[in-house]
């Protein structure tokens, strides 16, 4: 490559050679044959690399040619006949294939067996026992420490009667007891104030489930008879599950989302 501008300078001063353009044209024409000769003669790794490059160029050229050959005027409909012919009344409907339906039912059965349910809040922060319970000292000298008071919101149910105070280990203060929950329907996006029927599962442990503790992520059953839902068989639905979405002990109310 020229390391200066002397060639351009000469061209500007004296113009091109008289046969410059012809020679250029012919040299470029000979390039094709030279390349071909090199492709055939090159050996070893050099040959392989060159062949790879050449093939890539060929594929690219073929693609551009095919693109140009595509006519610009579009046909009205697709020309190819697809497999899986369906009659006109099934054409606009996407029917799930039988295999998919079967695998779906099997997956659902497996999930039910494992006890895994799809819930809006799959993971919740675990609540430690010292956060959940407050140790109550009792006795004449206040040395006995076997009683615990629940510091979170609870649900006890209408027919709840306390055990004799001398023997009850867990105290659920009536100020932290809730009967109603503000449950939101996820699709309709409206909230209803529904009665709690019971606590189904508390993710922190089965002990808390049996105590009826309502923390964030607890699955509760609410009375939806006032929503007027009906099953496909015609029976009236009166209980549905909901998941608690707030910390009731901080807010003073239980908020949840309905599991549909």
């Amino acid at each position, binding site marked *: 490559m020229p390391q200066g501008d002397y060639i351009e300078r000469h061209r500007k001063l004296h113009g091109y050679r008289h046969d410059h353009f012809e020679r250029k044209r012919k040299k470029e024409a000979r390039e094709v044959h030279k390349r071909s000769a090199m492709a055939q003669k090159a050996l070893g790794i050099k040959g392989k690399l060159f062949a790879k490059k050449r093939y890539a160029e060929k594929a690219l050229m073929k693609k551009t040619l095919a693109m140009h050959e595509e006519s610009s005027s579009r046909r009205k409909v697709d020309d190819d006949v697809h497999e899986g012919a369906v009659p006109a009344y099934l054409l*606009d409907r996407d029917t799930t294939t039988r295999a998919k339906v079967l695998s779906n039912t099997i997956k659902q059965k497996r999930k039910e067996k494992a006890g895994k349910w799809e819930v809006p809040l799959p993971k919740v922060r675990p609540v430690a026992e010292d956060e959940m319970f407050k140790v109550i000292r009792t006795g004449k000298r206040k040395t006995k420490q076997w009683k615990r008071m629940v510091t979170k919101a609870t649900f006890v149910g209408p027919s709840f009667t306390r055990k004799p105070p001398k023997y009850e280990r867990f105290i659920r203060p009536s100020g932290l007891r809730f009967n109603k929950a503000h449950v939101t329907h996820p699709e309709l996006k409206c909230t209803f104030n529904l009665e709690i029927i019971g606590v189904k599962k508390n993710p922190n442990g089965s002990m808390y489930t049996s105590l009826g503790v309502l923390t964030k992520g607890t699955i509760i059953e609410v009375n939806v008879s006032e929503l007027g839902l009906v099953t496909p068989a015609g029976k009236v639905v009166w209980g549905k599950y909901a998941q608690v979405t707030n910390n009731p002990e901080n807010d003073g109310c239980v908020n949840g989302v309905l599991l549909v």
Partner: protein
Amino acid sequence: MEVEAQQRDVNNVMCQLVDPEGTTLGPPMYLPQDVGPQQLQQMVNKLLSNEDKLPYTFYISDQELVVPLESYLQKNKVSVEKVLSIVYQPQAIFRIRPVNRCSATIAGHSEAVLSVAFSPDGKQLASGSGDTTVRLWDLSTQTPMFTCKGHKNWVLSIAWSPDGKHLVSGSKAGEIQCWDPLTGQPSGNPLVGHKKWITGISWEPVHLSSPCRRFVSSSKDGDARIWDVTLRRCVICLSGHTLAVTCVKWGGDGVIYTGSQDCTIKVWETSQGKLIRELKGHGHWVNSLALSTEYVLRTGAFDHTGKQYSSAEEMKQVALERYKKMKGNAPERLVSGSDDFTMFLWEPSVSKHPKTRMTGHQQLVNHVYFSPDGQWVASASFDKSVKLWNGITGKFVAAFRGHVGPVYQISWSADSRLLLSGSKDSTLKIWDIRTKKLKQDLPGHADEVFAVDWSPDGEKVASGGKDKVLKLWMG
């Protein structure tokens, strides 16, 4: 003598015979309580002065009367003091034997069979398939007769002209081809005009114009076109629907009904292509339409006697008589089945509001069909049941359960006593209308059944489906 008759101590009941539309027949009369359906039949024949003894069925408050009046009255504790109105319904004179065996499984198509249709005289059978061919089958030897090639994509719908001289088929490519059923050759070039696939084809009734020239086709592109077979072009384009037109029917009064995915049904007049009425009411796609006179329009001048007609004029006359007899004085009724799980009964010439809403299905209604005598409507739904409704009032009568997959298509026998249904579970089932129960189960298909048809002479049933074979069933 008289004393003896009185001592026999048979109570009398005051009865009044009423026809299905409500007009009374004869004065109210005292009938002894041991009168049964046979005696009532004789009386009706006498009062109507019928020459041949036509069979009738009798209904008291929508329940069929099969036992003598006495046992009926005792069972239902009907008071003898009021006039008892007995509704009589004429039945077909001929009785179709139920089919119970597969007489032939004819292979021939290389892809699923999408539509099956018998010719109006019941002598020929045509089927359209996903392998882009239409095949004509020989019914006497039960072998393939002609293969009509010419379509570019799946053949979605086929329709015979009511005089049996033309066969027209529509494909997924939007083209319509006309075939000559006697030679299997195309009658000309394909008729192009629609831009998307053809969803339905319906011919002009033969009593309006004979020989048959015009037919209407509906397409996914939202319009319906009226074509002329002799001119070989589209004469009128009925556009107005905003979404796909799913079904089209040419009514006996010379109007065209189109049902569409935009939840409306439009009524068009046929000389100019103007919109007469728009029937709104459905909440989702309209899947299927049925007319009360549909069977008569489809079969034209042919009936169960199998008589052939030579001239077009004669055919027109006979078809007109049959149509008038079928229609009676009542206006034409239209039933539409929709994706919103309900059906509506309309009287389009009277009002644009529906007469009855027929609810009860738990999944979308795919196909509705009036019985040939217009007394019943049957609906096939994806909830695996077939429901039977009264064809005049639209009241629910019975549900036929038995299928284990969505029911795709139904077909009536020519005497309106048997109903055939084909479903995704690969079986066909025949239901008896009188007993409201399953009459015959026809298993045998290897895959979903897409199309069923009962021949107008009642002898054979043809069914085709995803397993690519055509099955013929006989009694």
